[in-house]
């Protein structure tokens, strides 16, 4: 294994997003703050409590998850896609870096950005709703596994995309509906019968619920459900991305 090569790619990925903090760190922070202001202020007057917690506190885990997932996804997809467009992907194809090293480098950088923005979002949440952390290990596990899984989905999207408009396909048509219908702003149990059943097929529901249990101590499902779903998703997406990188999918001709 090329440990130094892997570490170099990882550090490069981190330096890449740290150099443009306005775009990579500040911008998501502002959009999350707006969620708190708009949804929190507008709805907390009507919905005072959900599952026994104030509405503003209830949406904190979901918004943290949104930040983690979106930023991990975008970092990985934009990094590999821009490498393809700029032609710098050649440096990686020719270097002694196998699929494993590439996954660790790209996904690692994306996980760091996702967690960082997630923590900043949490700080904003604490400002609006006060602090709460009931199960630290579960919270950390869900955040890291969630960031990793969405980083891999980002890699997949970046590998697949050949045009700029295709880079936005996954975030717009897959991630946005899944996350907004994933119980970030509401309790899935409150949905009418058919929609509740449909929601159970959305993996984001379990992830948001797991994080909510970790941070607030309340949730629909058993605490092991979210880590299990995330581990399964992480393993499947790792296997797919590894296989695609090994055969040079849309990287080699």
């Amino acid at each position, binding site marked *: 294994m090329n440990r*130094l090569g892997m570490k*170099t790619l990882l550090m490069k990925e981190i330096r*890449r997003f740290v150099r443009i903090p306005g775009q990579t760190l500040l911008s998501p922070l502002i959009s999350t703050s707006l969620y708190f202001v708009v949804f929190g202020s507008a709805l907390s007057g009507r919905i005072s409590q959900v599952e026994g917690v104030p509405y503003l506190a209830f949406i904190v885990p979901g918004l943290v998850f949104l930040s983690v997932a979106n930023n991990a996804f975008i970092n990985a997809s934009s990094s590999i896609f821009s490498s393809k467009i700029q032609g710098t992907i050649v440096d990686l194809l*020719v270097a002694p870096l196998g699929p494993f090293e590439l996954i660790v480098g790209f996904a690692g950088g994306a996980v760091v950005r996702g967690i960082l923005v997630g923590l900043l979002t949490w700080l904003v949440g604490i400002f609006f709703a006060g602090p709460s952390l009931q199960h630290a290990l579960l919270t950390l596990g869900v955040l890291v596994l969630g960031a990793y899984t969405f980083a891999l989905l980002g890699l997949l999207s970046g590998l697949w995309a050949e045009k700029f408009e295709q880079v936005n396909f996954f975030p717009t048509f897959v991630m946005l509906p899944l996350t907004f219908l994933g119980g970030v702003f509401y309790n899935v149990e409150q949905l009418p019968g058919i929609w509740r059943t449909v929601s159970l097929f959305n993996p984001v529901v379990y992830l948001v619920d797991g994080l909510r249990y970790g941070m607030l101590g309340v949730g629909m499902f058993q605490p092991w459900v979210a880590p299990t779903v995330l581990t399964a998703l992480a393993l499947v997406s790792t296997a797919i991305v590894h296989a695609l990188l090994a055969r040079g999918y849309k990287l080699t001709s």
Partner: protein
Amino acid sequence: MYGAMSPPVLSIEGLRKQYGNFTALHDVSLEIPAGEIFALLGPNGAGKSTLIGAICGMVRKTAGKVRLFGIDIDEDPVTPRYRVGLVPQEINFDPFFNPVECLEIQQGYYGQKPDPERIREVLEAMQLTSKANVVTRALSGGMRRRLLIAKALVHRPQLVFLDEPTAGVDVELRRDLWSYIRRLRAEGTTVVLTTHYLEEAEELADRVGIIDGGRLLLLEEKAALLERLGKRQTAVHFTEPQQSLPEALGELGVVLSEDGNSALYTEQATSNHGSGRVLGALYSAGLPIRDVETQRPRLEEILIEVLRSGGAANAQKQEVQA
């Protein structure tokens, strides 16, 4: 360093690349010994970059074997890459980093810790020292290409592929690069070069391969090739234009230039006596000679000739197959 007994650092057997019905490489076989400068020549779309891509991991070959340093890249694609460097034909740059950072990253990819001394050395060789800490966005096209060369060399590879390394690089720097490539060879580095500047191949190459339509048409030591296929042209310039030449000169194959100012004679590079006989005949005829110019055999003419005959042979082959 270069010698017939050196084991091949690169060995290719029956390499084929197919894009649908189009065959980009037709069963190419080739061996490159250690310490050689090998020039791969051919027109645009001949298959030069595809061949290099298939060796370096950018192109998935359809069939054939590639061994780098004796290792079959199908069995172990990663290990030999530690010893390989590539200057790709297309200029690329990462706008987030400056040349020093790019070179540090490159060393890291190849499992090496940042080596400031080595980085300083390659930046100096590529005349980029003054731009060491400037973002790559601000570099000119020529500078970016030089940075590509620096990146390909910074990890001290034993085999370097230079795909059009001096395109867009000014003449003076091009000559400096040639000296650097010779120095690399002297240090034992093997160089595979593709170029449109045939002068570059003439200056540097030990051996030349000519490729067209994905077929390797010729593979020969440069000196032997120039000797075998090269033509030497002698031009005798007159002080005043001539209407015609004496019949004896015509029989020797001498022709008068269109403007009547010169007598031109072309002979095989292997010929030892043709020019002398022509010059003697010109003096004997009492023509007003101003000066005599001899042009040494050029790869350009050989390339054109080989491509012409190779193209004809391929067309014939296709006709037979049809």
